[in-house]
Protein backbone atom coordinates (compact mmCIF):
# COMPACT_ATOMS: atom_id res chain seq x y z
CA UNK A 1 0.00 0.00 0.00
CA UNK A 2 2.81 2.41 0.92
CA UNK A 3 4.56 1.55 -2.32
CA UNK A 4 1.41 2.36 -4.26
CA UNK A 5 1.17 5.71 -2.54
CA UNK A 6 4.77 6.50 -3.39
CA UNK A 7 4.32 5.55 -7.01
CA UNK A 8 1.23 7.67 -7.29
CA UNK A 9 2.77 10.66 -5.63
CA UNK A 10 5.88 10.59 -7.81
CA UNK A 11 4.01 9.74 -10.99
CA UNK A 12 1.57 11.75 -13.05
CA UNK A 13 0.28 13.61 -10.05
CA UNK A 14 3.50 15.48 -9.32
CA UNK A 15 3.08 19.20 -9.74
CA UNK A 16 -0.70 19.03 -9.92
CA UNK A 17 -3.08 20.44 -7.34
CA UNK A 18 -3.64 18.11 -4.40
CA UNK A 19 -7.39 18.16 -4.85
CA UNK A 20 -9.88 19.01 -7.51
CA UNK A 21 -13.12 20.89 -7.71
CA UNK A 22 -14.96 18.21 -5.74
CA UNK A 23 -13.78 19.67 -2.45
CA UNK A 24 -14.19 23.33 -3.36
CA UNK A 25 -17.06 24.85 -1.46
CA UNK A 26 -18.00 25.56 2.10
CA UNK A 27 -16.99 22.20 3.59
CA UNK A 28 -14.34 21.86 6.29
CA UNK A 29 -12.28 19.89 3.78
CA UNK A 30 -11.97 22.85 1.42
CA UNK A 31 -9.95 24.68 4.07
CA UNK A 32 -7.55 21.81 4.68
CA UNK A 33 -4.39 20.94 2.76
CA UNK A 34 -4.90 17.20 2.64
CA UNK A 35 -7.29 14.41 3.52
CA UNK A 36 -6.34 11.61 5.96
CA UNK A 37 -4.05 10.30 3.20
CA UNK A 38 -2.73 11.92 -0.01
CA UNK A 39 -5.54 12.80 -2.42
CA UNK A 40 -4.48 10.45 -5.26
CA UNK A 41 -4.48 7.58 -2.78
CA UNK A 42 -7.86 8.60 -1.39
CA UNK A 43 -9.39 8.80 -4.87
CA UNK A 44 -8.53 5.18 -5.53
CA UNK A 45 -8.78 3.60 -2.12
CA UNK A 46 -11.21 5.50 0.10
CA UNK A 47 -13.68 2.61 0.03
CA UNK A 48 -11.06 0.18 1.35
CA UNK A 49 -10.46 2.46 4.31
CA UNK A 50 -14.17 2.86 5.02
CA UNK A 51 -14.78 -0.88 4.69
CA UNK A 52 -12.02 -1.69 7.17
CA UNK A 53 -13.24 0.94 9.63
CA UNK A 54 -16.81 -0.33 9.23
CA UNK A 55 -15.96 -3.82 10.45
CA UNK A 56 -13.79 -2.79 13.37
CA UNK A 57 -16.34 -0.21 14.47
CA UNK A 58 -19.33 -2.55 14.41
CA UNK A 59 -17.62 -5.60 15.89
CA UNK A 60 -14.90 -4.18 18.12
CA UNK A 61 -16.32 -0.79 19.01
CA UNK A 62 -13.33 1.16 17.70
CA UNK A 63 -14.64 4.60 16.88
CA UNK A 64 -11.59 6.56 15.79
CA UNK A 65 -12.79 8.96 13.14
CA UNK A 66 -9.78 9.02 10.78
CA UNK A 67 -11.30 6.52 8.37
CA UNK A 68 -14.96 6.59 9.33
CA UNK A 69 -17.83 7.41 7.01
CA UNK A 70 -19.10 9.87 9.62
CA UNK A 71 -15.69 11.57 9.46
CA UNK A 72 -15.93 11.81 5.64
CA UNK A 73 -19.35 13.43 5.83
CA UNK A 74 -18.44 15.73 8.69
CA UNK A 75 -15.52 17.11 6.70
CA UNK A 76 -16.87 17.04 3.16
CA UNK A 77 -20.48 18.23 3.52
CA UNK A 78 -21.05 21.71 2.14
CA UNK A 79 -23.44 24.28 3.53
CA UNK A 80 -26.03 26.15 1.51
CA UNK A 81 -26.64 29.89 1.55
CA UNK A 82 -28.64 29.57 4.78
CA UNK A 83 -25.87 27.69 6.56
CA UNK A 84 -27.71 24.38 6.34
CA UNK A 85 -25.83 21.24 5.41
CA UNK A 86 -26.40 19.92 1.89
CA UNK A 87 -26.60 16.09 1.77
CA UNK A 88 -23.46 14.60 0.18
CA UNK A 89 -25.81 12.54 -1.98
CA UNK A 90 -27.22 15.53 -3.84
CA UNK A 91 -26.18 16.35 -7.37
CA UNK A 92 -22.60 17.62 -7.68
CA UNK A 93 -21.94 17.21 -3.97
CA UNK A 94 -18.84 15.44 -2.74
CA UNK A 95 -20.01 11.81 -2.85
CA UNK A 96 -22.65 11.91 -5.56
CA UNK A 97 -20.61 14.11 -7.91
CA UNK A 98 -17.96 11.47 -8.56
CA UNK A 99 -20.12 8.39 -8.13
CA UNK A 100 -22.63 9.59 -10.71
CA UNK A 101 -19.88 10.46 -13.15
CA UNK A 102 -18.19 7.08 -12.75
CA UNK A 103 -21.46 5.13 -12.69
CA UNK A 104 -20.91 3.77 -9.19
CA UNK A 105 -24.00 2.75 -7.28
CA UNK A 106 -23.55 2.64 -3.55
CA UNK A 107 -26.00 2.34 -0.74
CA UNK A 108 -24.19 3.80 2.27
CA UNK A 109 -26.82 6.48 2.50
CA UNK A 110 -29.86 4.27 2.52
CA UNK A 111 -28.91 3.72 6.18
CA UNK A 112 -26.30 6.37 7.05
CA UNK A 113 -27.05 10.03 7.49
CA UNK A 114 -25.87 12.10 4.50
CA UNK A 115 -25.36 15.24 6.57
CA UNK A 116 -23.41 15.78 9.78
CA UNK A 117 -25.72 15.89 12.75
CA UNK A 118 -25.80 15.76 16.49
CA UNK A 119 -25.11 12.49 18.24
CA UNK A 120 -21.47 11.57 17.72
CA UNK A 121 -20.14 9.12 15.20
Amino acid sequence: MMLGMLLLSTGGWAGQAQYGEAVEGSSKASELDACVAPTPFMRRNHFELILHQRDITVHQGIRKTDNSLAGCIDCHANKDAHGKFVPVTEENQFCAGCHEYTGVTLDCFSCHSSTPNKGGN
Partner: protein
Amino acid sequence: MSVAGKAAAAAAIAPGVFLHTMGNAAPRAEAVTDDVRYGMLIDTSKCADGCSDCVSACDQENGMDLLIKPQGASDEDWARQKPRWIRTVKVQDNLTGKVTSLPMLCQHCEHPPCVDVCPTGASFRRADGLVLVDRHTCIGCRYCMMACPYKARSFIHENVQLQRTAVPRGKGCVESCTFCVHRLDHGGSTTACQDACTHDAIVFGDLKDPDSRISKALAEHSSTQLRADLKLNTGVRYRGI
Protein backbone atom coordinates in the same frame (compact mmCIF):
# COMPACT_ATOMS: atom_id res chain seq x y z
CA MET B 1 -3.27 12.01 26.01
CA SER B 2 -4.58 8.49 26.27
CA VAL B 3 -8.13 7.75 27.34
CA ALA B 4 -6.84 6.31 30.61
CA GLY B 5 -4.70 9.41 31.20
CA LYS B 6 -7.62 11.70 30.56
CA ALA B 7 -9.88 9.75 32.87
CA ALA B 8 -7.26 9.75 35.62
CA ALA B 9 -6.74 13.50 35.31
CA ALA B 10 -10.44 14.18 35.52
CA ALA B 11 -11.46 11.54 37.98
CA ALA B 12 -9.55 11.51 41.25
CA ILE B 13 -10.84 14.39 43.33
CA ALA B 14 -10.25 12.67 46.68
CA PRO B 15 -9.23 9.18 47.70
CA GLY B 16 -12.08 6.85 46.86
CA VAL B 17 -14.18 9.63 45.36
CA PHE B 18 -14.45 9.69 41.61
CA LEU B 19 -16.22 11.88 39.14
CA HIS B 20 -17.72 10.08 36.18
CA THR B 21 -16.60 11.71 32.96
CA MET B 22 -19.21 11.76 30.22
CA GLY B 23 -19.69 12.97 26.68
CA ASN B 24 -16.74 14.56 24.82
CA ALA B 25 -14.37 11.74 25.90
CA ALA B 26 -12.09 10.40 23.18
CA PRO B 27 -13.72 7.77 21.01
CA ARG B 28 -12.73 4.20 21.80
CA ALA B 29 -9.43 3.34 20.12
CA GLU B 30 -8.95 -0.22 21.43
CA ALA B 31 -11.16 -3.21 20.76
CA VAL B 32 -13.73 -3.99 23.45
CA THR B 33 -12.87 -6.94 25.66
CA ASP B 34 -14.81 -9.36 27.83
CA ASP B 35 -13.38 -7.73 30.96
CA VAL B 36 -16.68 -5.87 30.94
CA ARG B 37 -20.20 -7.19 30.68
CA TYR B 38 -22.85 -4.55 30.41
CA GLY B 39 -26.14 -5.19 32.13
CA MET B 40 -29.22 -3.46 33.41
CA LEU B 41 -31.34 -3.84 36.52
CA ILE B 42 -34.94 -2.66 36.35
CA ASP B 43 -36.84 -2.22 39.60
CA THR B 44 -40.46 -2.67 38.59
CA SER B 45 -41.72 -1.59 42.00
CA LYS B 46 -40.36 1.89 41.23
CA CYS B 47 -41.72 1.84 37.69
CA ALA B 48 -44.81 4.07 37.61
CA ASP B 49 -47.92 2.85 35.81
CA GLY B 50 -48.56 4.93 32.71
CA CYS B 51 -45.07 6.44 32.63
CA SER B 52 -43.25 6.07 29.32
CA ASP B 53 -40.31 8.43 29.80
CA CYS B 54 -37.81 5.69 28.97
CA VAL B 55 -39.60 4.93 25.71
CA SER B 56 -39.64 8.53 24.51
CA ALA B 57 -36.01 9.05 25.54
CA CYS B 58 -35.04 5.98 23.52
CA ASP B 59 -37.03 7.22 20.52
CA GLN B 60 -35.22 10.51 20.62
CA GLU B 61 -31.76 9.09 21.23
CA ASN B 62 -32.02 6.49 18.51
CA GLY B 63 -33.81 8.44 15.81
CA MET B 64 -37.23 6.80 15.95
CA ASP B 65 -38.70 10.29 16.36
CA LEU B 66 -37.39 11.17 12.90
CA LEU B 67 -39.40 8.42 11.21
CA ILE B 68 -42.57 9.24 9.35
CA LYS B 69 -45.47 6.93 8.63
CA PRO B 70 -45.04 5.38 5.16
CA GLN B 71 -47.51 6.57 2.55
CA GLY B 72 -50.55 4.35 2.38
CA ALA B 73 -49.95 2.66 5.73
CA SER B 74 -52.80 2.68 8.20
CA ASP B 75 -52.31 4.03 11.70
CA GLU B 76 -52.70 0.51 13.09
CA ASP B 77 -50.04 -0.92 10.77
CA TRP B 78 -47.64 1.86 11.61
CA ALA B 79 -48.21 1.51 15.34
CA ARG B 80 -47.46 -2.19 15.03
CA GLN B 81 -44.53 -1.97 12.63
CA LYS B 82 -42.53 1.08 13.65
CA PRO B 83 -39.30 0.20 15.39
CA ARG B 84 -39.49 -0.08 19.17
CA TRP B 85 -36.33 -0.85 21.10
CA ILE B 86 -38.02 -0.50 24.47
CA ARG B 87 -41.70 -0.81 25.26
CA THR B 88 -43.82 -0.94 28.38
CA VAL B 89 -45.70 -4.14 29.11
CA LYS B 90 -48.01 -5.22 31.88
CA VAL B 91 -47.75 -8.67 33.34
CA GLN B 92 -50.30 -10.26 35.60
CA ASP B 93 -49.79 -13.06 38.07
CA ASN B 94 -52.84 -15.21 37.35
CA LEU B 95 -52.73 -16.76 40.81
CA THR B 96 -52.67 -13.58 42.85
CA GLY B 97 -53.92 -11.06 40.30
CA LYS B 98 -50.92 -8.78 40.93
CA VAL B 99 -50.26 -6.55 37.92
CA THR B 100 -46.74 -5.29 37.26
CA SER B 101 -45.81 -2.83 34.54
CA LEU B 102 -42.26 -2.97 33.26
CA PRO B 103 -40.11 -1.81 30.38
CA MET B 104 -39.16 -4.60 27.97
CA LEU B 105 -36.11 -4.40 25.78
CA CYS B 106 -33.39 -6.61 24.31
CA GLN B 107 -32.17 -8.68 27.25
CA HIS B 108 -28.59 -8.87 25.90
CA CYS B 109 -28.37 -12.60 26.64
CA GLU B 110 -25.12 -14.45 27.15
CA HIS B 111 -26.52 -17.20 24.91
CA PRO B 112 -28.72 -15.21 22.54
CA PRO B 113 -31.17 -17.24 20.40
CA CYS B 114 -31.11 -14.48 17.76
CA VAL B 115 -27.39 -15.08 17.23
CA ASP B 116 -27.92 -18.87 17.11
CA VAL B 117 -30.37 -18.67 14.24
CA CYS B 118 -28.81 -15.88 12.15
CA PRO B 119 -27.80 -17.39 8.79
CA THR B 120 -25.28 -14.66 7.89
CA GLY B 121 -23.61 -13.84 11.19
CA ALA B 122 -25.16 -10.38 11.19
CA SER B 123 -26.65 -10.94 14.62
CA PHE B 124 -23.72 -11.12 16.99
CA ARG B 125 -22.68 -10.70 20.59
CA ARG B 126 -19.93 -8.16 21.15
CA ALA B 127 -17.14 -9.04 23.58
CA ASP B 128 -18.55 -6.69 26.21
CA GLY B 129 -21.92 -8.43 26.19
CA LEU B 130 -23.92 -6.25 23.82
CA VAL B 131 -26.10 -8.18 21.39
CA LEU B 132 -26.08 -6.21 18.14
CA VAL B 133 -26.98 -6.46 14.46
CA ASP B 134 -24.33 -5.80 11.83
CA ARG B 135 -26.68 -4.31 9.28
CA HIS B 136 -24.04 -4.54 6.58
CA THR B 137 -24.55 -8.31 6.60
CA CYS B 138 -28.21 -8.48 7.65
CA ILE B 139 -30.38 -9.81 4.81
CA GLY B 140 -33.65 -9.07 6.55
CA CYS B 141 -34.79 -12.68 6.88
CA ARG B 142 -36.19 -12.01 10.37
CA TYR B 143 -35.33 -15.43 11.79
CA CYS B 144 -33.95 -13.58 14.81
CA MET B 145 -37.28 -11.88 15.38
CA MET B 146 -38.96 -15.27 15.46
CA ALA B 147 -36.29 -16.69 17.78
CA CYS B 148 -36.30 -13.87 20.35
CA PRO B 149 -38.42 -14.89 23.36
CA TYR B 150 -38.78 -11.24 24.34
CA LYS B 151 -40.12 -9.87 21.04
CA ALA B 152 -37.38 -7.29 21.31
CA ARG B 153 -36.48 -6.79 17.66
CA SER B 154 -37.94 -4.57 14.97
CA PHE B 155 -37.77 -4.66 11.19
CA ILE B 156 -37.52 -1.60 8.97
CA HIS B 157 -40.11 -2.05 6.24
CA GLU B 158 -39.72 1.16 4.26
CA ASN B 159 -37.05 3.57 3.11
CA VAL B 160 -35.84 5.90 5.83
CA GLN B 161 -35.26 9.55 4.97
CA LEU B 162 -33.62 10.82 8.15
CA GLN B 163 -31.19 9.18 10.52
CA ARG B 164 -28.97 10.30 13.38
CA THR B 165 -25.29 9.92 12.50
CA ALA B 166 -24.75 7.68 15.52
CA VAL B 167 -27.69 5.42 14.70
CA PRO B 168 -27.83 4.33 11.06
CA ARG B 169 -31.13 2.83 9.95
CA GLY B 170 -32.39 1.54 6.61
CA LYS B 171 -34.98 -0.55 4.83
CA GLY B 172 -34.65 -4.32 4.99
CA CYS B 173 -32.71 -4.72 8.25
CA VAL B 174 -33.56 -5.85 11.74
CA GLU B 175 -32.59 -3.77 14.75
CA SER B 176 -32.95 -3.72 18.51
CA CYS B 177 -31.69 -2.03 21.67
CA THR B 178 -27.93 -1.44 21.59
CA PHE B 179 -27.58 -0.27 25.21
CA CYS B 180 -26.77 3.10 23.54
CA VAL B 181 -23.52 1.66 22.18
CA HIS B 182 -22.56 4.98 20.59
CA ARG B 183 -22.51 6.54 24.07
CA LEU B 184 -20.44 3.73 25.55
CA ASP B 185 -17.92 3.91 22.71
CA HIS B 186 -17.47 7.62 23.30
CA GLY B 187 -16.73 7.29 27.00
CA GLY B 188 -20.33 7.46 28.24
CA SER B 189 -21.53 5.22 31.03
CA THR B 190 -25.31 5.61 30.89
CA THR B 191 -28.16 4.81 28.53
CA ALA B 192 -30.83 7.24 27.39
CA CYS B 193 -33.62 5.31 29.15
CA GLN B 194 -31.70 5.31 32.43
CA ASP B 195 -31.05 9.05 32.21
CA ALA B 196 -34.72 9.69 31.48
CA CYS B 197 -36.09 7.60 34.36
CA THR B 198 -37.11 10.00 37.10
CA HIS B 199 -38.11 7.11 39.35
CA ASP B 200 -34.58 5.67 39.48
CA ALA B 201 -36.01 2.35 38.31
CA ILE B 202 -33.18 1.64 35.83
CA VAL B 203 -29.59 0.95 36.82
CA PHE B 204 -27.07 0.31 34.06
CA GLY B 205 -23.47 -0.78 34.45
CA ASP B 206 -20.76 -3.41 34.38
CA LEU B 207 -21.85 -6.76 35.81
CA LYS B 208 -18.22 -7.87 36.10
CA ASP B 209 -17.14 -4.92 38.23
CA PRO B 210 -17.95 -5.84 41.86
CA ASP B 211 -17.92 -2.14 42.80
CA SER B 212 -20.40 -1.00 40.16
CA ARG B 213 -23.80 0.16 41.37
CA ILE B 214 -25.55 -2.61 39.46
CA SER B 215 -23.32 -5.37 40.88
CA LYS B 216 -23.86 -4.10 44.42
CA ALA B 217 -27.63 -3.90 43.91
CA LEU B 218 -27.73 -7.41 42.45
CA ALA B 219 -25.68 -8.76 45.35
CA GLU B 220 -27.90 -7.10 47.90
CA HIS B 221 -31.41 -7.80 46.59
CA SER B 222 -32.98 -10.74 44.85
CA SER B 223 -33.69 -10.28 41.17
CA THR B 224 -35.17 -12.30 38.32
CA GLN B 225 -34.33 -13.05 34.74
CA LEU B 226 -37.33 -13.15 32.45
CA ARG B 227 -37.84 -16.69 31.15
CA ALA B 228 -34.97 -17.91 33.31
CA ASP B 229 -36.01 -21.42 32.29
CA LEU B 230 -34.44 -20.82 28.89
CA LYS B 231 -31.03 -20.46 30.56
CA LEU B 232 -30.00 -17.53 28.38
CA ASN B 233 -28.26 -15.67 31.23
CA THR B 234 -29.81 -12.35 30.37
CA GLY B 235 -27.94 -9.09 30.89
CA VAL B 236 -31.18 -7.36 31.90
CA ARG B 237 -32.52 -8.30 35.31
CA TYR B 238 -35.76 -7.31 37.03
CA ARG B 239 -36.74 -6.71 40.63
CA GLY B 240 -40.26 -6.78 41.99
CA ILE B 241 -41.84 -9.23 39.57
